[in-house]
């Protein structure tokens, strides 16, 4: 009897064989373990992502939601409130408004990579991607450069879940609470001494003449920090893993760094860190002979849609010439990732600089220690050896 448990370590390690069975045999599957429906085909996920009236985010979008967060963040509200909230923030993340960050990001990448020069083997995550992403996010949000390591550790902890209880554990809730207190401190500081930056503007913004709810300001800021660090770091690590495992692709990118753009898109398709998000049905829906009821939760398995052979030929091949348009690596529809432009820019610059110091490397561990998370997928440690 087939089962799909997004909390199981086997799914953390390699969800793709499960996804294939889901797509081919159970395209609308009730997971007893997760207590939700799983949609795994590209077309079904796109349809659901476009239809926010039916597939609502207002009850949370993380597979294992954090307490009291739903309804107060971009990812956990529906239009029209969502659109207004997003309107206050998104200009800061638009591609054309990121130009001023290009050089600071390059400096961060160069400094972080050069500090490792001469090393023969190291953990890419602790030595490069964590340091880089925290510094980039701090620069983007104008956060003070202190507590960097703690902020990063808490961001990574709060997205995890307990594989045994299939819920958030006390350590995950504690990290989430820590992050809220950290965000509250930043907000208070900006209100006392406003700067011309995102958090200053956002913390004092109004929608239709009403100040934003305190919970919205706090949890949206908390989520921006979490997503900025964990999602960007997780994706960068998956990208490094792909380049470490696919020597030809890496050599091509080193010889011609313009190809990093295509390699990033293919990585977003091939094994994006944002594997699964959830929605809540607002009405009964019948799909592939199954009737899902209003109030049921539904998982949109982006990582499976990206491997759907109905959309992408030879989906299990990592091919940087593929140019996989329409991939679900950033989700899709009104809730598509806010940080697409800064993520693409940051990862490209990071690897341009990293490859100047380390053009040739491979993975050391045969088995990777995967993060326990029902939503995201990336290793906790990625040892690479320099040639």
């Amino acid at each position, binding site marked *: 009897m087939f089962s799909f448990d997004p909390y199981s370590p086997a799914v953390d390690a390699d969800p793709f064989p499960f996804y294939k069975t889901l797509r081919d045999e159970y395209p609308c599957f009730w997971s007893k373990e997760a207590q939700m429906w799983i949609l795994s085909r590209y077309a079904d996920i*796109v349809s659901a*992502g476009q239809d926010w009236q039916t597939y609502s985010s207002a009850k949370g979008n993380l597979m294992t939601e954090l307490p009291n967060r739903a309804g107060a963040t971009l990812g956990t509200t529906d239009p029209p409130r969502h*659109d207004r909230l*997003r309107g206050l923030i998104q200009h800061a993340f*638009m591609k054309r408004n990121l130009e001023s960050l290009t050089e600071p990001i390059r400096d961060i990448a160069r400094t972080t990579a050069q500090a490792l020069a001469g090393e023969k083997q190291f953990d890419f995550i602790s030595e490069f991607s964590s340091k880089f992403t925290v510094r980039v996010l701090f620069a983007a949000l104008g956060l003070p450069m202190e507590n960097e390591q703690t902020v990063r550790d808490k961001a990574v902890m709060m997205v995890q879940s307990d594989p045994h209880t299939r819920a958030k554990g006390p350590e995950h809730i504690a990290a989430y609470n820590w992050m809220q207190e950290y965000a509250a401190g930043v907000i208070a500081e900006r209100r006392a001494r406003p700067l011309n930056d995102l958090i200053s503007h956002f913390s004092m913004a109004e929608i239709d003449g009403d100040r934003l709810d305190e919970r919205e300001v706090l949890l949206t800021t908390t989520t921006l920090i979490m997503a900025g660090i964990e999602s960007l770091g997780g994706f960068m690590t998956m990208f490094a893993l792909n380049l470490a495992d696919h020597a030809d692709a890496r050599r091509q990118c080193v010889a011609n760094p313009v190809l990093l753009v295509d390699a990033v898109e293919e990585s977003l398709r091939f094994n994006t860190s944002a594997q699964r998000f959830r929605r809540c049905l607002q009405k009964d829906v019948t799909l592939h002979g199954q009737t899902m009821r209003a109030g049921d939760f539904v998982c949109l398995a982006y990582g499976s849609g990206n491997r759907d052979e109905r959309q992408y030929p030879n989906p299990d091949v990592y091919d940087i010439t593929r140019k996989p*348009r*329409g991939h679900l690596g950033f989700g*899709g*529809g009104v809730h598509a990732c806010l940080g*697409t432009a800064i993520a693409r820019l940051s990862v490209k610059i990071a690897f341009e600089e990293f490859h100047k110091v380390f053009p040739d490397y491979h993975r050391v561990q045969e088995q990777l220690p995967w993060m326990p998370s029902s939503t995201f997928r990336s290793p906790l440690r990625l040892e690479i050896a320099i040639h």
Partner: protein
Amino acid sequence: MTTITYVEPSGNRVTVDVTEGWSLMQAAIANGVEGITGECGGSCACATCHCYVDEARMADVPAAAEGELGMLAHVAAERRPNSRLACQIKASAAIDGLVVHLPETQE
């Protein structure tokens, strides 16, 4: 299904049967139509799915909301009265047979 014809910048016409509810951007990129980028993934945040809606059918297409109007100010090609963002137009019976022209550039 809603039939939509995209006219690529080269003049090439591509007709796609679009699933009801899909945006014209999503359908275009999922079907390999040239001349549309959709960089932000459909959240009305990048202005790279700019299209020109057939003028004769403008009344059939629901009007642009505030967010789209704001983002249309950032399109790379000439903005015209029939400029729209394809991510904000959803396939429905009302727009069956619609022709949209894609601009020379999106960035």
